[in-house]
């Protein structure tokens, strides 16, 4: 019977239009992610089970003589677990990433709190100052540390002068794990400040009034109200620092010594140096697994503290 359907003709048109809008708007980014993240990811996983090609790349899947055909293998994974050096590089990289994250957190928290509690007018200016370093090139900023930490720099002279006064051997600041750590913190600090600020800025100031009113000292107000409420900001800031530091190769390349190889350098070396694509892929996959494991652990730790709105 006509006119009996629940959705009338104009209403159906509206529904169709809404559906179309959804696809038009979310389609391009979806396609982008599919093309440049999902498909390369799958290619990387597949590559890790292959043999390296003679001149780099992957071994061909066809061969004139079937006896020489190199098909699918677990060789790269066996190799990864057979030599403890790779595990050691992983552990060292994770420690470097953890140290960077912790230092960034302790430096960024007071700064973010200061910005969040400043008058509204000056907040925007301060946030601008935090992101201003991005206006200059990343490599230039890292190279600048070569000058700051170089053997003839004022800083090196000061440090070694002090050490000499204490009767200790002089040290090289540049080309050391210390230089790598300093630059890692320097480069990633804004990534910690911004999510923390975004979180702290949203806190209802009347909660602090209430806590004070109910007998909490300034210290208790921080640990019992501000800090627990800022945990989501701490977690997102930590993720934004920890994950890129774990895979970073440029900073240790430029500022690290010859003995300061991190995972990032190792992977880069497989693709550009030894031209062993399958092993490079395996290392990348292991890195992804490590990051996911750590994220899962952090989420579990966070979950145990109780969740709220």
């Amino acid at each position, binding site marked *: 019977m006509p006119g009996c359907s629940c959705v009338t003709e104009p209403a159906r048109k509206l529904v169709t239009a809404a559906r179309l809008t959804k696809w038009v708007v979310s389609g391009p980014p979806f396609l982008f992610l599919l093309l440049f993240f999902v498909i390369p990811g799958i290619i990387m996983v597949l590559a890790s089970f292959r043999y390296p090609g003679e001149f780099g790349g992957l071994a061909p899947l066809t061969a004139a003589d079937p006896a020489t055909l190199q098909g699918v293998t677990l060789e790269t994974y066996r190799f990864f677990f057979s030599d403890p050096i790779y595990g050691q590089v992983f552990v060292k990289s994770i420690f470097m990433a953890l140290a960077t994250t912790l230092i960034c957190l302790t430096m960024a928290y007071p700064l973010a709190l200061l910005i969040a509690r400043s008058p509204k007018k000056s907040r925007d200016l301060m946030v601008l100052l935090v992101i201003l370093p991005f206006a200059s090139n990343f490599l230039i900023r890292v190279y600048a540390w070569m000058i700051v930490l170089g053997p003839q720099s004022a800083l090196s002279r000061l440090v070694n002068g002090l050490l000499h006064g204490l009767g200790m051997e002089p040290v090289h600041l540049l080309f050391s794990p210390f230089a790598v750590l300093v630059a890692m913190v320097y480069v990633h600090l804004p990534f910690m400040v911004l999510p923390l600020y975004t979180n702290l800025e949203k806190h*209802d100031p*009347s*909660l602090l*009034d*209430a*806590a*004070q*009113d*109910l*007998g*909490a*000292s300034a210290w*208790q107000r921080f640990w*019992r*109200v501000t800090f*627990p*409420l800022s945990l989501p900001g701490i977690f997102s800031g930590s993720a934004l620092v920890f994950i890129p530091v774990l895979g970073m190769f440029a900073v240790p390349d430029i500022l690290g010594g010859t003995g300061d190889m991190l995972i990032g350098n190792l992977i880069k070396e497989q693709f550009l140096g030894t031209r062993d694509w399958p092993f490079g892929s395996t290392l990348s996959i292991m890195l992804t697994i490590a990051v996911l494991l750590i994220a899962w652990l952090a989420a579990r730790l966070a979950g145990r503290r*109780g969740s*709220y*709105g």
Partner: protein
Amino acid sequence: MAQLEIRNVTRRFGDFVAVDNVSLSIEAGEFFTLLGPSGCGKTTILRMIAGFDLPDAGQILLDGKDLADTPAEKRPVHTVFQSYALFPHMTVAQNIAFPLRMARRPAAEIAGMTRQILEQVHLTDKADAYPHELSGGQKQRVALARGLVNRPRLLLLDEPLGALDAKLREEMQIDLINLQRDVGITFVFVTHAQVEALALSHRIAVMDQGRVAQVDEPARLYGYPKTRFVADFIGHINQLEAQVVESTHGHLRLAVAGLGEIIAPPLKDAAVGTKGVFAIRPEQVRIGVHGELDELKNHFAGVVHNLLYRGEVSIYQVELANGAVVEALLPNSAPGKAELFMACDEVKLGWRHDAGMFLRD
């Protein structure tokens, strides 16, 4: 000695005088209300009692002790905030236990006191819920419980019913009265809603532009406002511009331009010629048809202008001969019949010689 003594307190923000030489004394166990329009200084007084703000001049004494050097967290004064300010990362029980933990009470005592107050506000089954899972009324009760649990000397309430809908607000008013009576803690309540203030308070201080206009019990405040501001702010009141023509011990005779004379209750030192208003509540004004109400000393003819049907009562707005509009209120006690008079009806208004009051300019 009153429990809370506010002595000549003044607070300025730049050129603006928020609180102007205010003195109040609040007795132990009292439900005391600061009532006034927004910007009258009532919240500033509350913040100074709590310790979030300091007076520029004057003293605030609690149990005879000056609070000037005691920071907010050390004052035995707790506040129920307008926004409730419940900690979103804590459960109801943790929120309520917060002041007890800050006071470093033993764990067993904290558990017992929390349980007891939860029962008192009927939230035992919500102990483990988070604030975002509660309704407005429940949040309100948690905020009250949290403010009361450590038994402060004073509980300050900053428009705590403002965010609730009308029906819930009425229920909460009754809960508040009962709760205050049960715990016996002094409440200092801040509101701009006069109905709320009249229903809840033992005494009310009406504030206007940083000053206290009048402090009195609700019935006296309503029945005998001392100034035009108080008369106007508390409830509805009719006002007729008038001038004293005779002043005796027994009565006042007032002249109202274009209308005639009114016999009003006596007022001390009201000299002949004093200008002001004659003020009378709508429920004191009687309305009748021509020929009725002649036995009353004050009666005038008029025309019904408007009719406001409010359910339990109807309000008739009657225009008098001089153009002034006077409201008369009639209860709708007879079922069904609510419109005794229609617009444009010619009616009589009258009131007793001892009703209403003369308020000087």
